[in-house]
Structures are given as structure tokens and as C-alpha cells.
């Protein structure tokens, strides 16, 4: 049984940013989900014709002006780093806490969930050159030439393939020098980041923390990996791009929503999964000092819905609204749990929720008294994490 000591001080969570195919704020996403708008795009090149996914959820690649950086800096970043920086910029604009000069830079932290870098290796341009210059491109002698490699591989390849360079860009752009962490590569990483950030704020190491997750860029190598996991056979695993951020603070915010509980663990085999889902859900609920019956909305991510029964077994209300957002907006990897977190914060603020409909394309919006919301995230290897949000009664 995993046990978790109660946090030392409440940690409040503020709605940050959502950057996804439905738009660049949580209201747009909420509305798109409620309206059943799916901004699907055909895979971006004809070569994908025979691949398992014909359409995916893409976002525009942010440019230098959106990112507020010199154009030269873009050479050091792949699309995922740009999505991360853009999401961070939107969150900093949205939440005053991070611009608050009374909090020193050394008390402003950063916790990121990052995918494995999405660049082709060797770079695709190198393969094209090999085809042009090599007598035997499938066994090219040029790959044994140091001179050829140094010439054909982009100068900043070592940086653009380093996923943590997103941290460096975000910290430099927004002058964050506090405690930090970066986790990868799948959806579970988002709540690893959130939970560790919560601990750092609760214990006074940071006064505020920017917490974000970013999806991988949709590219053929990613699709091969998704197929490796068998996700091509899951209807809710349509690849999606995006990023999402929230801000944690020790100061009570106007919405007064806090991270009241969490639990995290590992499921080594499917046989033990039901028991561990229950253990970890129960632990998170106990940590938040609530029962399953107190939960007003549940947003699982990447669990395949397997933890829903566990929550009911613990006594959740039969009428508990559940939103599996990935079936409506695609599978955005490490961004997904934080997109859900922003949806939960929006719902807590507006006292409304979304629930899946039978067609799984749109979600039905309902008004309802929300106080405690449970969210979960899972990694394909077996990581499973639960977070409970609670709204203070004002």
C-alpha cells in the first residue's frame, strides 16, 4: 500500500493555458468539446496513406513572434519545444502570479512533462543527401565519413534532440530560477511534474511554480511507436498535438482550488491492475480527506477507462460524471492530463462539467455543484497517478 503524508500547507492551482487543435484557451476547448467540433487534419503527407491514422489533431507550429524569441533561437528547437514555450507564454499572460515582482525569481519554479524528442535520426535531410550522392544508399559508405556527417547534420542537432532544452528556453524567457524538474515521456509524466511541484510549493521551496506538459509532434516515428504500443487499435488514441500549463501558488487565489490529494504507483501486470487502481485511488482520497462519494467529477487520461470501476468500487456516486477527453480531442500524451486539469479548473470555477456522450465525439455540458474533482493519468509501462482538486467553500 502506498502511503502519502498530508502536505504541510495548501497549494492552490490556477488555470493556465491550453494550446490544442481546438484553440489556445480552455474556453475554446470547452466549447469545442460541448459542440462536438473536432478539428481533425489529414496526415500531413501522402506517404501516410496506408498508416493506421488517416486524420490527427494538429496545431500550428508557433513562430518567433508568438514565442517572443529571436528567429535564430528557432534553430535550436523542434516543434515540441516550441509548443511548450508557447503554452508557457500563454500561461504567464493568463496568470499574474508569475509576473509578480514581490516573488523573487529564485522562488518561481518550473516542472515540465516532456515527450522524447521527435526529430528523425539521422535527420531526414541527411537521408535525402545520401540518396543523391551515394552509390549504395541502403549501405552508404558516407556514413563512415566524419566529414560528410559534420557537413550534413544540422549545427544545432545536439540541442534540438535534447528534450530538456524546453526548460532552458522557458526559464530564460520568464526568469524562473527556482526549484525545477522535468519528466518524460508519456502522460504519467504530467502528474509526476504536478505532484513534485506541489510538494516544492507546500514545503516553501518555491512560492509559485509553472507546471506544464507538451505532446510530441505528430510524425511517422511517433506513429510507429504508437503502433508498437497497440494504440492504433484504440479508437480514443488519435494522435494529437498541444501543450497545457497551470500555475501553483501558496497564496490563496480567487478561485481557491487546491491540490488536496494525490497518489502514484506502478502496475507491473494487468492481473494486479484492479487492486492497485483501488489502492491508489483510495490513497489519494484519504490524502485529500474525502471519500469516493464526495467526488463530483472524474477525468481519467490514458487509462483506457480501467480505473473507473475501481472508483465505483470505492463508493463513488452512481451518477458520477466522467469525461474521457481523449475520445473527443485525441491523445496528446504528456499534455493530456494538464489539459484535463485546466478543464477541471474551468468547471470548478463555472460550476459546470462535461460528460462523455455515447458517440464519444462531443461531450455534454451540465451545470452542477462541483467541489471535489478526481483526475488520473497513466503511462503505457504501468505508471498510474491520481490527483484530487478541491474547491474551498467560500
Amino acid at each position, binding site marked *: 500500500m502506498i502511503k502519502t503524508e498530508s502536505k504541510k500547507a495548501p497549494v492552490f492551482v490556477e488555470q493556465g493555458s491550453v494550446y490544442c487543435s481546438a484553440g489556445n484557451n480552455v474556453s475554446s476547448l470547452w466549447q469545442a468539446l460541448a459542440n462536438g467540433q473536432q478539428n481533425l487534419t489529414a496526415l500531413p503527407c501522402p506517404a501516410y496513406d496506408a498508416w493506421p491514422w488517416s486524420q490527427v489533431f494538429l496545431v500550428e507550429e508557433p513562430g518567433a513572434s508568438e514565442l517572443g524569441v529571436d528567429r535564430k*533561437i528557432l534553430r535550436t528547437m523542434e516543434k515540441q519545444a516550441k509548443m511548450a514555450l508557447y503554452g508557457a507564454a500563454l500561461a504567464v499572460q493568463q496568470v499574474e502570479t508569475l509576473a509578480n515582482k514581490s516573488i523573487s525569481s529564485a522562488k518561481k519554479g518550473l516542472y515540465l512533462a516532456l515527450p522524447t524528442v521527435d526529430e528523425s535520426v539521422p535527420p531526414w535531410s541527411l537521408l535525402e543527401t545520401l*540518396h543523391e550522392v551515394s552509390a549504395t544508399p541502403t549501405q552508404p559508405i558516407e556514413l563512415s565519413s566524419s566529414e560528410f556527417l559534420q557537413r550534413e547534420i544540422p549545427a544545432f542537432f545536439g540541442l534540438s*534532440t535534447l528534450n530538456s532544452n524546453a526548460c532552458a528556453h522557458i526559464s*530564460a524567457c520568464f526568469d524562473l*530560477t527556482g*526549484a525545477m524538474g522535468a*519528466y*518524460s515521456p508519456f502522460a504519467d509524466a504530467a502528474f509526476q511534474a504536478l505532484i513534485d511541484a506541489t510538494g516544492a510549493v507546500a514545503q516553501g521551496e518555491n512560492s509559485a511554480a509553472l507546471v506544464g506538459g507538451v505532446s510530441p509532434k505528430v510524425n511517422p516515428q511517433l506513429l510507429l511507436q504508437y503502433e508498437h504500443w497497440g494504440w492504433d487499435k484504440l479508437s480514443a488514441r488519435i494522435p494529437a498535438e498541444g501543450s497545457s500549463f497551470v500555475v501553483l501558488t501558496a497564496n490563496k487565489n480567487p478561485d481557491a482550488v487546491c491540490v488536496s490529494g494525490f497518489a502514484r504507483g506502478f502496475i507491473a501486470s494487468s492481473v494486479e491492475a484492479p487492486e492497485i487502481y483501488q489502492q491508489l485511488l483510495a490513497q489519494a482520497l484519504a490524502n485529500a480527506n474525502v471519500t469516493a462519494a464526495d467526488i463530483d467529477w472524474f477525468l481519467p487520461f490514458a487509462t483506457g477507462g480501467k480505473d473507473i470501476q475501481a472508483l465505483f468500487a470505492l463508493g463513488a456516486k452512481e451518477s458520477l460524471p466522467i469525461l474521457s477527453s481523449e475520445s473527443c480531442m485525441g491523445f496528446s500524451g504528456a499534455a493530456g492530463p494538464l489539459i484535463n486539469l485546466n478543464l477541471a479548473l474551468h468547471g470548478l470555477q463555472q460550476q459546470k462539467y462535461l460528460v462523455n456522450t455515447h458517440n464519444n465525439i462531443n461531450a455534454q455540458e451540465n451545470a452542477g455543484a462541483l467541489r471535489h474533482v478526481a483526475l488520473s493519468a497513466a503511462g503505457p509501462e504501468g505508471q498510474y497517478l491520481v490527483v484530487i482538486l478541491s474547491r474551498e467553500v467560500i
Partner: protein
Amino acid sequence: MNSRVVVTGLGVVGRLGFEWQDFWAALLAGQSAIVPWQPENIEDFPVRYAAPVDNAQFASYFSAQLSAQPPMERRSQFGLMAAHQAMNDAGLLGKTGLNMGVAVGSGIPERYTPDMLLAMGDGGPDWQTLYAKREQLNPAMRSGNDQLAALIARAHGANGPVQNFSTACAGAAHAIGSSFRMIRNGEVNCMIAGGADSVLNLMTMVGLNLLGAPSVSEDYGDKLCRPFDEGRSGFVAAEGGAFVVLESLDHALARGAHIYGEVVGFGSSMDAYRVTAPHPEGKGAALSMHKALVDAGLDADNINYINAHGTSTPLNDTAETFAIKTVFAKDQHYQKLAVSATKSQIGHWIAAAGAPEFIATLLATQQGIVPPTLNLENPDPLCDLDYVPHKARAVTINAALSNSFGFGGLNTSLVVKPYKEDRHG
């Protein structure tokens, strides 16, 4: 109530050996792991030296354990074996019901060039061709970079948090620091923490070389890694895996475990400066050390030894020296510190670097002997601390720091003390 956190198992797999005792003996003897090196099938690569693991010796030493494993990246092989060694050392192999998690620092995924050559069709590379041949892709390359963390968790029955850190060269230290926090907070009883990395593959080394990070000098032969020396010219890449078993003190005492030392503090920070260079005055590094001391509840003058990040790059070593002088400025305590750079002996393990260096710090603290900084023949005038040149030295250590600073200004520091029954004794 916070739990005290102790180290009860060590595992190191690198060029200096496959048991921590061999690694430690080699450090104290002033041995170097750095040898002439070129990527496979290349003779004119600009980087001429590295510290690779000897393939034949590794395969032979771990043949029994490796034969039962699925295909995996090279770094995962090192890491899985190092974690096995640490669990064996802790007396926890085969034990169940431990309430244990795993935290790993991992770096850039390994690049298997033949995989992408599968994309070559008659008309040039195309994705459709690659897709058609996908069954030929190396399966080890298709899982995520949390592969090692999951392998370790399964191998040792961990059901607690399983984390994979991506903080560049601070990754393994981050993993150890996060594990320390989770045990201290009562979330778990036990963690397997550390890192493994191998950048000694063609594509990654080309990428690093294009950034000017590794040394391409041939002036010093196998003495090329020379932290704090005027002649330093870049890091020397290495590979390996290192893990520790961390436990709550109560858990360790209840099972009569051997205790190597106590982890008492962890700090992290960011430079917020440049993607390609540390802050020249080491502001982020100083903040990381300061935070670790605050976390440990220690004044700076309690520290006697620092295992430096000490990469042998022109920028890091002066910035780190500056940072140390800032943090330990009171009464010029920096003049009393022993500071050494383990990378001078083992090279730079990149994302894993923090783990063998943490182990070296811990053993130095336990045994009262500090491993040296090799090849420090002409100290840089801007690097004017006591770097324990050439030879190991006996030092009484009340508390020690281990620094790991990642590319892009991602910094961590860990504080360890010798284990004493009475923490304040």
C-alpha cells in the same frame, strides 16, 4: 514527521568496473577510464578520447542476467545491471512487499542509424517504405525513454512511483533527490534511484561535437579530461549506469541493513540564462547549492567536501568555482573545502553523471578519504580552490555536497552526511 533517509545499496557499472568496490578502489588509486576512442567504422572522427564500457567484459560479467532480458538500449543494459548490483548490495534481491519506487535520469534516446536506413527506397527515403519494413525496426528503440525505469520496476517488484527525469546532465541527481524527498515525506519506504546513459553512438556524438561540447584536443592523450586546468578544452564523453538504494532509516534499521550514509538535503535551480552556456558567475549553481543546504538545515561551514560537476569545459569550471566561492564566502570557508572532480577519472556520463559522483561523495564521507582531481597540472588562475590534485586525501567530513549541472542551466545539489544514530551527534 519527516523520515531520515539512508543509503543501503550501491551499484556502479562503468569502465572502471562492475562492482562499486572496484569503482571506488580505482578512484582512490587515481586510475583513469579514458582511452583512445572512435565511433565504430570511423577513423577520422574529431573526438579522439572517451570512456567506453568494454563490451566483451560487460557481456561476460553479466551474461546470466542479460540473457533473460528483452532487447533494450545500451544505456538500459548498463542501468538494469547497476540497479541489480545495488539491490543485491542492499540485500533486497527477491524481496517483496517493499513499498518501493524507482527514479531514473535518462538522456537523449540512442540512435540506431540502420533503423532509419530502412526508409531508403528506389526513389529515395520515404516513410511508406519505412512503414512497410517496420517489423525490422529495433524494438528497443520503439519504446519510450522511461524504458529503463519500467524494466527496473518490474525486475524488483516496485509498486511505488516510477519516475523518469529529463534534466540533461542533472538527470540522475534529480532522480536521487526526488527519491530522497519521497521517502522523507513518507510517500514510500524505499527507492532505487540513479541513472544510465550512453552517448557513444555516431549520431549523438556528431550532434554534441557540432555544439563544441566534447574536447577534440589530442594534446594530452588519455589525460585529456582536466577539470579546472588551464589546458581543459571540453568534456570527455563516457557511458555507464549507477544506482543506489535509498531507504527510510526506520525501514533500514528494522531489517538490519548496512548503512553507507545519510542523505540530508536536495536543491535544484535554473540559470535562466542561455541554452548553450552556464551563467558566467554560476548564479544558478550557487542557488542550487544554497537550496540544498537550506533543505538540509545546515550552515555552509558544515560542508567539508564538494564533489564538483567539474566537466573540464572552459565555461563550467570557472562558473562552478565562482558559485562555490559565493555560497561559502562567509569566513572564506571555500578555502577550507576539499573539492574534486570525479569526471577527471571516469569522464562525463551525461544524464547518468550524478549517480556515480553521488556514490563517490557518499563513500568519501563514510570513509574520510576524498578521491582526487586528475590531470590538474596548471590550474586556471580563475579556478583557485583546493581541488585535491592527483592523489586521494584523507579528510574528516561532517557533510558533503555533490553537484550536477545540466545543459541549459538545470542544476541540482545533494547533501550527504556520515550515518550517526543521533543525527545531531
